[in-house]
């Protein structure tokens, strides 16, 4: 059963839609290409189920930038994309700032900065809507099998294995680059978020 009521979930989807709009705009500026977004999917699943979703869509290997955040809510945000497309993304990003032959040297750092910008665009939008503040740790880069990458995200205790998985697909169509932005919240943060959403809905209906 979903821990959120239908209206709360609708509101949450819309909030992340706005946040990802900012993120897509940032990514589009970085790569000078149009970035398309899917409608956010809101799922309550565990990390094993998340791993399976990523495995099915990525062919097994992903690169990911993850960032812990805290403040009004606490959790992890993650940007993932198939490893075999990451160099293409970097080429678009760096353009003539770095000679082509040196591109791989900057792969991890460039992807980390992309993740930092996209994740924070989403979090900033959420904080602003609730007139609150969210602070984030430094971004961490991981690359490998979906299982390893998801396993490397802050291991959560067994009782907190259910996570809110907000997934937005983004694609740079011309370059055939597709990825996901994922927010993971434990049950306590989901409860806090639902209170924020209720207050927000209450204000709207006054």
């Amino acid at each position, binding site marked *: 059963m979903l821990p959120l009521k239908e209206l709360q979930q609708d509101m949450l989807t819309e909030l992340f839609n706005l946040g990802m709009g900012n993120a897509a705009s*940032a990514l589009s500026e970085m790569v000078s290409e149009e970035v398309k977004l899917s409608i956010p999917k809101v799922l309550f699943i565990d990390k094993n189920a998340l791993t399976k979703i990523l495995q099915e869509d990525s062919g097994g290997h992903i690169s990911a930038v993850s960032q812990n955040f805290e403040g009004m809510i606490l959790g992890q945000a993650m940007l993932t994309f198939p490893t075999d497309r990451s160099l293409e993304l970097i080429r678009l990003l760096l353009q003539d*700032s770095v000679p082509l032959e040196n591109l791989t040297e900057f792969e991890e750092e460039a992807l*980390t*900065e992309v993740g*930092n910008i996209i994740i*924070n665009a989403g*979090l900033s939008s959420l*904080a*602003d809507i609730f007139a609150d*503040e969210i602070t984030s740790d430094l971004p961490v880069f991981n690359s490998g099998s979906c299982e390893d990458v998801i396993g490397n995200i802050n291991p959560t205790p067994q009782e907190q294995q259910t996570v809110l998985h907000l997934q937005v697909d983004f694609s740079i169509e011309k370059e055939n680059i597709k990825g996901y932005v994922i927010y993971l919240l434990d049950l306590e943060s989901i409860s806090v978020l639902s209170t924020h959403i209720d207050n927000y809905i209450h204000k709207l209906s006054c």
Partner: protein
Amino acid sequence: MSEKRTVLIVDDSRVSRMMVKSIAKQNYPEVTIFEAGNADDTLALDITDELTHIICDYNMPGMDGLSLCKALQKDHPSSYITLLTANIQAATRNKAQDMGIHFAKKPVTEERILSILSKQGH
């Protein structure tokens, strides 16, 4: 664009520093650039040149960008100081504004960097 620029770039992302540096050098060939990846390294630079611009990230290992800007304001009161960050929350923008620090959102773009470098401090 002949006016001399002396710019300090502080960002833990080497890629971001490179992008800012590349844009600055292309548009101001005479520019002098100092750079560092965190607050400690910045303060250890012991810069005696008069900095026209300071461009500083917010979220870095150790001291955050706003605290560093506050420290730099004392030694470089005439510099045009900008917080260039992915953290685009109103709370962060307001803190910067209250300190008299300018705010620019990431990603690094030519338009954004040139807009910063075209401005003058006090």
